[in-house]
Each structure stands twice: as C-alpha cells, then as structure tokens.
C-alpha cells in the first residue's frame, strides 16, 4: 500500500460507449464553456491549445469495404493510482477527497510540469498563454471555476463545482450529501452528449448504471496494464476497438464475448 493512496466509498466514474459516440465534439465544447477555457490563441496548434476533454479518432486501418472508425473522448481518467500525484513537489494535485476525483489547485501549482510528464493519458495541460476572453465573454464565465494564469497545469475535474452544488442542494433538501443519487451530479460533457454515449455515476454503488456497465465484458480501460486503475471505462462491442485500448501483442486476446 502506497502512502498517498486512499480507499473511497464513493468513486465517481464514467462509462463511455464508443459505439454510440459520433465524434461530434459537443463534449469538448461543453467542457470548454463550463470550465472557463479561454479561446485559444491558435487552435490549430495542438501543442499549445488546451482541451480537458479531447476526442480521438480510432481506425481499424482496413481497406475500404472493411474500414471502420471509432471516436474516443478522453477527459481525465481520475486514476485510482494516479501517476501525477506522487510526482507533484508542492501537493497542488492530490487524490484525497471522497469520490476519488484527482484534485488540482491551480493557485498552488508552480508549473514544473512533472505531472504532465507522468500522466500516461496526456490528460494534463499547461497554460502557455494568459487566458484572454473577447470583450463581453467574461460574463459567460462559470463563477465557481477558477481561471488559470499562464504557467500552471490544469486538468479535468469531472466538473467538481457541480459536485459541490449537488451536495449543497442535497443539504438544503435534507438529504445526505454523502449519498447522492445518480442524477444529482452530472458533469457538463455528460449532460451535453447528444447520443447519451457517456454515463456518469458512482462506480462503487450497485444501484448506479455505471456500476453495471463497468462490469460488462465489453468494458475496458485505457492502458489498463499500467495498473493505474482509472475511474473511467470505455465500452465497445467491437473487438478491434477494445484491442486499441492497450498495446496488445498479436497473439494476445482482449476481453469480450
């Protein structure tokens, strides 16, 4: 047992159905609007632009009649054993709150980018520029999400402020804020997905849909053999898609039916 690891009773997690995802990118837009990402200086420059939620294209690389593509949205995977946390020299990022969301306090970050190098999923982004919003657009900022200055790292937090809102609402209604129902807390990308490809809930609660979906033989996790234990599952009934979830050798088989 590593010291920084904690066990959680609640594990907020996603199951993303790659067979339903059309690659429309609504989740990316929803995320950027919700989490105060400024319009990029040059969005075509992928090295310097920031997208907490990023949709990748997967291809089976077969010639025309058999050609098939899939789209894979990738937020932060909120690993159970995050690589980014132990490398942080100032504890700006940690996994210690109930719910298992890997926290990120941007005001504390010194911009050393160790966490960015440590993350095998490229889920962390560095602010190369100070954020600039066109005049009037600052009124659309989400109040309870910090804006980040140049020189700090940021990442997806599963819309943590919505988690806090949901807990407050539960308190006012006299419910237990530590036992939220499935629909109480939903991140922006999940809410916006037009094909309902993303399911969100408590992976540790058998009453939540994600619990059942994550146990499916079609469910897999990204680079699972790195043993990072992500709280994000992908789901596909296509064998070639599941095969791209990790670096399988030719003779190895992947899970499924």
């Amino acid at each position, binding site marked *: 047992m590593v010291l920084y690891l904690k066990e959680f009773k609640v594990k907020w997690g996603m199951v993303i159905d790659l067979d339903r995802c059309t690659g429309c990118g609504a989740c990316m837009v929803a995320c950027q609007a919700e989490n105060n990402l400024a319009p990029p200086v040059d969005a075509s420059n992928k090295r310097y632009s920031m997208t907490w939620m990023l949709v990748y294209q997967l291809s089976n690389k077969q010639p025309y009649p058999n050609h098939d593509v899939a789209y894979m949205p990738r937020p932060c995977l909120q690993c159970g054993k995050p690589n980014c946390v132990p490398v942080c020299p100032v504890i700006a990022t940690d996994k210690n709150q109930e719910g298992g969301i890997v926290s990120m306090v941007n005001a504390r970050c010194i911009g050393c980018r160790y966490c960015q190098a440590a993350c095998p999923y490229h889920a962390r982004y560095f602010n190369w520029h100070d954020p600039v919003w066109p005049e009037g657009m600052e009124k659309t900022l989400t109040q309870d999400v910090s804006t980040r200055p140049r020189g700090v790292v940021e990442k997806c937090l599963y819309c943590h402020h919505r988690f806090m809102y949901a807990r*407050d609402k539960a308190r006012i209604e006299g419910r237990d804020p530590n036992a939220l129902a499935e629909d109480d807390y939903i991140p922006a990308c999940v809410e916006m997905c037009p094909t309902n490809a993303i399911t969100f809930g408590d992976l540790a609660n058998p009453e939540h849909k994600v619990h059942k979906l994550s146990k499916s033989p079609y469910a897999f996790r990204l680079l699972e053999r790195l043993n990072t234990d992500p709280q994000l599952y992908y789901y596909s009934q296509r064998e070639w898609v599941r095969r791209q979830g990790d670096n399988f050798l030719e003779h190895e088989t992947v899970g499924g039916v």
Partner: protein
Amino acid sequence: MEEKKGGSSAGGVFLPFLLGFVAALAFGWWGVPHLLYSKKTQPLLFTHQNHIELYGMQCEDCHFFRRDGSFSGLPDNAKCAECHSFPLGDHPEEIRFVEEFYEKGVEVPWLVYQYQPDNVFFSHAAHQEFDCTTAGCHPDVGSSNEMPPLFQNRITGYSRDTMKMKTCERCHAEVAAKEPERFFGAPNACQICHK
C-alpha cells in the same frame, strides 16, 4: 577602577538599545496595523437590531438559501424595496436609500467583512449547523444598530476579518475528530474548499 569605567560605558550603550527596541516594538505592534489597514464605513446606515426587534423580522427573511442550495448573501435593492420603495419614515438615511440608490437603479455597495479569495469555494449550506457569529465567522451585526468599520488591508485588498486558511482547517479537523464519517478521514482535502 578601569573595570568600573568599562561597566558605566556598557550601561550607556544599553539604554539607547533598550529605547530603540521599545520603539521598534511599538512601531511593529501598534504602528504597522494602523498603517496597513484602511478604515472604511458602510455606504448607508442599516439598523439590524431595529429590523429584528421592532419589526419582528428573521435573519432568513433577507439572508436566505435558494432552492438549489446556494446562499443569497446580501439582499439587493429589490428585496429592500419590498418595504422601502418609498420612504416609510423620515430618517435621512432611508430617504437617501430611496433617492440615491433605489430610484436610480444603483445597487448599494455594501462592504463585506468576510469575502474569501477567488480560489475558495465556500458553501453556506454545509455550515448551517453553526451560528453565524459565535462560530467566529461573521461580526455580530444583528444585535446592534451600528455596523462595525471594515479594516481593509492596503496591500492585499482583503478585509482584516477574512478568515484565514488555518482557522478553516482547524475547525474542519476538530469536527472530523468528533464525527469521522462525515469527511471520511480527509477533512482538509484540497478541493473541499478550493476551486
């Protein structure tokens, strides 16, 4: 003889040192706080005590929770104008509210003693069980008709009474020690308070 001379000259050095030390202490303990904080008064007289005792109002009439769990904070002009859309009496401050603020559509720039920095997410709903004033969060404005002055730090711009992180952390740790299941053993996880 020479030793005595040496002793008296040492006393001559000691006295200015003592005076300087006392002066430096006085400057540090008394002078710096006066230099550091500017004193501000509320833009309008508001009589909490009269509203509660004479007119039977409750704190929650103006400072209420919304149904989504958020806290309304300070009432806006519309809330005040539910009673004071025209002067009910002849108090000059009330007339000033109506003429200078309500009728011109200008919100009263009330001073807040406790504004937290931008990277703090504070939930009033989570702290309902504690008393606003005796828990050490807010000055006790309800039991008097006077509003205390606000001491603003000239360098940071924060109020002197803004709660410091160590105070938040101490209370979280104490509550968690009594009821460990509430915080699941991590009462000071970063993102419980930070955003």
